[in-house]
């Protein structure tokens, strides 16, 4: 076969490999190169030194992680009961209800956030930190509900019966069986919520009238102002944090790969 490069099955993967190379690997390499060079293109650690020595940047970074943690925590607190009710055959039998909860995921995040701003204006609620957290939770809640709903729905119902049979009252069944078994869904939900919230900037801009800066905002401002090297260094720091989170959840999911939408 002369032209076997086109007929071999492995060559079908070529377009995807090219896509990955150009749009994932190359930008990542560029970020690393930019982060470790100064604006003359010479190797340097000055971007990182700048980050560590500038209290403003570090504070924004810590504040962003704080906001992301609060958002994730609130999403679990609100999302878990919602997912539990949706997956419980005695409480909900309709697929439409599930759809209604998932539907906001398909609407553009900016549209939703602008609508939230309008709503706050209409109700004369001042924008600020409270509005920011509300907006974050509102935007990311479906990403928490869906993976948890998925694991709960796939859970073997006889396990709950087994626990009841062994003498567990309903609350004990919930804490000793249902919650531990839905951990893959919770982990998946945390990843879906925590990671994007660290890098969000649009929500923060719109819902705080640009008064509160998140880490994503800092990166965006630096890039916009031509500070590519510093912006790249900040992006790299964020990527490392995200990378650490995903490693942590990977090891948890290895045994029970029942995750959600990712």
């Amino acid at each position, binding site marked *: 076969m002369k032209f076997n490069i086109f007929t071999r099955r492995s060559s079908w993967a070529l377009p995807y490999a090219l896509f990955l190379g150009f749009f994932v690997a190359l930008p990542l390499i560029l970020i690393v190169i930019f982060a470790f060079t100064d604006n003359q293109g010479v190797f340097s650690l000055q971007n990182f030194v700048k980050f560590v020595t500038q209290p403003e940047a570090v504070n924004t970074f810590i504040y962003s992680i704080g906001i992301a943690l609060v958002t994730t925590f609130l999403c679990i607190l609100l999302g878990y009961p919602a997912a539990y009710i949706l997956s419980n055959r005695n409480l909900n039998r309709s697929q439409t209800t599930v759809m209604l909860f998932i539907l906001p995921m398909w609407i553009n995040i900016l549209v939703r956030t602008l609508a939230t701003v309008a709503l706050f204006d209409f109700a004369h609620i001042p924008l600020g930190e409270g509005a920011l957290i509300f907006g974050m939770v509102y935007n990311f809640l479906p990403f928490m509900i869906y993976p948890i709903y998925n694991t709960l729905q796939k859970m*073997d119902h*006889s*396990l709950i*019966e*087994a*626990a*009841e*049979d*062994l*003498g*567990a*009252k309903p609350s*004990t069944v919930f804490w*000793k*069986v249902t919650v*531990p*078994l839905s*951990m893959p869904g919770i982990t998946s939900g945390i990843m879906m919520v925590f990671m994007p919230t660290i890098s969000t900037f649009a929500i923060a801009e719109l819902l705080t009238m640009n008064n509160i800066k998140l880490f994503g905002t800092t990166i965006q401002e630096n890039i916009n102002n031509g500070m590519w090297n510093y912006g790249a260094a900040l992006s790299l720091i964020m990527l490392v944090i995200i990378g650490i989170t995903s490693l942590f959840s990977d090891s948890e999911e290895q*045994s*029970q790969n029942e995750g959600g939408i990712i």
Partner: protein
Amino acid sequence: MVKQNNTIIKIEHLSKSFAEKVVLDDINLDIRRGEFVTLLGPSGCGKTTLLRMIAGFLQPDSGVIIMEGNDISDVPPHRRPLNTVFQRYALFPHLNVYDNIAFGLKLNKVPADEIEKRVRKALKMVSMTYYEDRDVNSLSGGQQQRVAIARAIVNRPKVLLLDEPLAALDLKMRKDMQMELKEMHNTLGITFIYVTHDQEEALTLSDTVVVMSDGKIQQIGSPIDIYNEPVNSFVADFIGESNILNGRMLKDREVEFIGHTFECVDEGFGEDCAVDVVIRPEDIYIIANAENAKFTGTVKSCIFKGVHYEMFVETDKGYEMMIQDYNAFDVGSTVGMFIKPSDIHVMQKERVCNTFEGKMISDTTVEIMGSQFECLPCGAKEGDDVIVRVDFNKVELLDNKEDGIVMGEIEFILYKGNHYHLTVLTDEGEKVYVDTNDIWDKGDFVGISVSSKDLRITKRV
């Protein structure tokens, strides 16, 4: 009364329906302390529903479950003094073997050192010592089953419920586990309620077998009673192999079937009464000398089954009989046979023809099974309530279900030596019984039709 005190669970008039379908229909059952009771029946007979109701996972529509004198019908499962071994094991995947078994004990606040002692003892009982720290997902099916049993018995329940616990195991493993379960029952001395569809398993393990079908108890008895004295053709067909034949009780101790008259031991059926006759294949003796035999036949097939040969013999009057014998007889050869009087089991027929309640629509149309059938003028007028009888062999089954007047699904097939006796369930949920020579499969959809002259109509009063 002594016997009353000995009853641990008493079930009275228990009924349950799921969306119009009756799953349990007026179940009454007494279970004695320490007894090994098996609920046996084909899938969908209600046996698992009954077990789940005893465990407390399902609420009865009516009726009560009494345990040691107390009505437990409304007691939630976690407060019932019984434990279940689930069909798919239902081990907690997030706990190791030790924590799975200790789950119930920890909930009951048993001291830690006693938990450890009891878990080890339970593991030893199911031959799983040294497996405490293993992840349950790494165990084989048989090992998981052992852990599931240990998890249940470690709580020392008064009654152990087992829902087809061995169904997922391979044959060899199943046989071993059967023996171990029986031994465990003897050692523990607690009551076992066991659900299975495997009749051999039921006969091997049980003190008492409860045969169920269609949400009703068909027969309760010891394995020997159930096997030797089945009360109806369903039980006879379900338990072991059997030849079930139409017969006629001529007088006491004399029955006619397969075109011959036999001496038997049954009495009290009256004279000239239609009956079902059950002959176990091992109870028909083949003798080489055909002249001295009661009846003769031709060997149609002969298959080696390990211990015995299984033969199908066509008798001189055209009936097919299954016979098991230690000796093989050549296919095509003529053999003589006889049956001992005590091996002939005579049963009352449950019905001799189809009986429907209906209503006259006009002089020549009658409505039965929710559809209109043409009939001959019979004197009944429009609007009269009537009883319509149709002989089994007068019901026509059609391949194309749209061609019939009523549609149905074949639910049960019984071979009667020279014809099939089918139970057909109509879309309206009525049962039609059909005698036919055609071969149908269970689950086939058929059209049902009856010619106008075969509807025997009488007025209902």
